[in-house]
């Protein structure tokens, strides 16, 4: 019983402290710029490009795709900085030195980024409705909320894996930026999946966001939750696979770093 309460305490402390630590350098103005205005500007860019490329009738396709893509801002950047930041700030050794349950530490780090990521997507949808004319009159809003939450969780799974890679490389931002921009193509946010080559489609279905974006588009056009349930299960499964991979990778790095004495060697 004591172990459970300790783990719950560890989870909450980890969640809150890692989030506070992540934003120790970020002021409200920076948060507004990076988490609200940047995604809005990116959405505008791709929505205008998409409607210029096809037709204004396809606006909803691009708005929904790019709104969901916002989950990757917290999912990729936030998560990898939460995990990889320990190496930069010299606290990695303390984490490896504690007897704390690594899985609980991981879950704690993810929790706030999931909430923050989901909030970012909600804000993007609000922009979509207010500024770009997105019609949600046929949308089952609770079902859309569930899609947003699950998509954010699965994207954070990938971010967790990226965070572990941040423990062994100095070019963290290169990898994060690369994955984030590649998702703009591979997730189907801006290009219908059917238009992509088969090999890209195969990779797309192994990535988070892909099924979530498809599900969100269906929900916005009036589909019911039961119709998109298989997509949501698929999205959740993909996310969990990345979580497990990230956790295993972290365990491997811990053992390797301790054995070789390369804990904070860049």
């Amino acid at each position, binding site marked *: 019983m004591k172990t459970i309460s300790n783990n719950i305490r560890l989870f909450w402390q980890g969640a809150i402290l890692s989030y506070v630590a992540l934003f120790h350098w970020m*002021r409200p103005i920076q948060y507004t*710029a990076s988490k609200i*205005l*940047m995604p809005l500007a*990116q959405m505008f*860019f791709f929505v205008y490009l998409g409607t210029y490329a096809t037709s204004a009738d396809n606006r909803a396709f691009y708005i929904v795709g790019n709104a969901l893509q916002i989950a990757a801002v917290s999912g990729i950047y936030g998560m990898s900085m939460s995990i990889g930041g320990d190496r930069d700030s010299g606290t990695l050794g303390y984490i490896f030195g504690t007897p704390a349950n690594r899985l609980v530490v991981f879950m704690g780090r993810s929790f706030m980024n999931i909430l923050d990521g989901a909030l970012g997507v909600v804000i993007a949808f609000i922009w979509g409705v207010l500024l770009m004319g997105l019609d949600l009159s046929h949308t089952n809003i609770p079902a859309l909320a569930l899609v947003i939450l699950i998509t954010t969780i699965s994207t954070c799974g990938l971010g967790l894996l990226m965070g572990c890679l941040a423990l062994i490389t100095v070019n963290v*931002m*290169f990898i994060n930026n*690369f994955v984030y921009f590649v998702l703009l193509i591979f997730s189907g946010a801006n*290009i219908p999946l059917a238009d992509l080559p088969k090999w890209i489609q195969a990779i797309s279905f192994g990535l988070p966001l892909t099924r979530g974006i498809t599900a969100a588009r269906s929900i916005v056009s009036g589909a019911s939750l039961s119709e998109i349930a298989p997509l949501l299960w698929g999205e959740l499964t993909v996310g969990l696979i990345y979580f497990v991979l990230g956790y295993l990778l972290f365990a491997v790095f811990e053992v390797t770093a301790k054995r070789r004495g390369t804990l904070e060697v860049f």
Partner: protein
Amino acid sequence: MNIQLIRKYWRTILIVAEMNIRQQMTDGFVLFTVLFQPIIIALLGLWMLKDKGPDAAIFVVVGSGLTGLWSSLLFISGNSINFERWTGTLESLVAIPTPFEVIVFGKNLANVTQSLLSMVLGYFVAAFAFGYPMEIQQPWLFIPSVILAVIAFISFGLIIAPIFVMNPGVRAWQNAMEFPIYVMCGFLFPIALLPGWTNPISYLLPPYWAAVALHGTSNGGASLNETLFAWGMMLLFSLIDLLIASRLFAHMLYKARADATLGME
């Protein structure tokens, strides 16, 4: 910064540019910004605009190259002075007899020039990966357009860097300033799509005139008069930017010395 300084210190400018390129070729963030990001945007654009036919390909290549130029200017040139501060070399650079803005000019030259690589790579991607027949319609007007665009971007960068140094609050908006310029300057779609009230803002941005000249001469869509007008606007903005930059640099260095905050953020 003025033309006399550039004439007098052109060797220094070239050396600074060379050293900057050598140094940055090992930086993952720089490589991503000047090469990978524009290529990914080019791939996206080529796929999205494929129904518009081969004519759109050269438009996408030039437009994605312009996105690379702007991102490089914003994130790399914008931080060119702060970078020296972070690495502890700012005091030395300010103390040497060579005017500081000459050093920053050389750094911006390197950033903008290396960003042009993305346009070249985009050209090959469109030609070989997508099989589009790529032809620059007015090559003799396109080349001067590229040169004037480089000058306009460097001059614009000379304003951004000291503003970011003196106003950390403005630098906080850096992440939010990337895509609006892609949108407002018509890099990948015409600004006619935007609400009319935004057009005067576009006209005040040097990258917009660079886009007009480069798109117009590459796809042959602009008349000679339109191209000449865009050139004139780029030159005009370059001169204005250089004038403002010289004031900003003088003010920044005076303030840093008076407040003794040169190496402090």
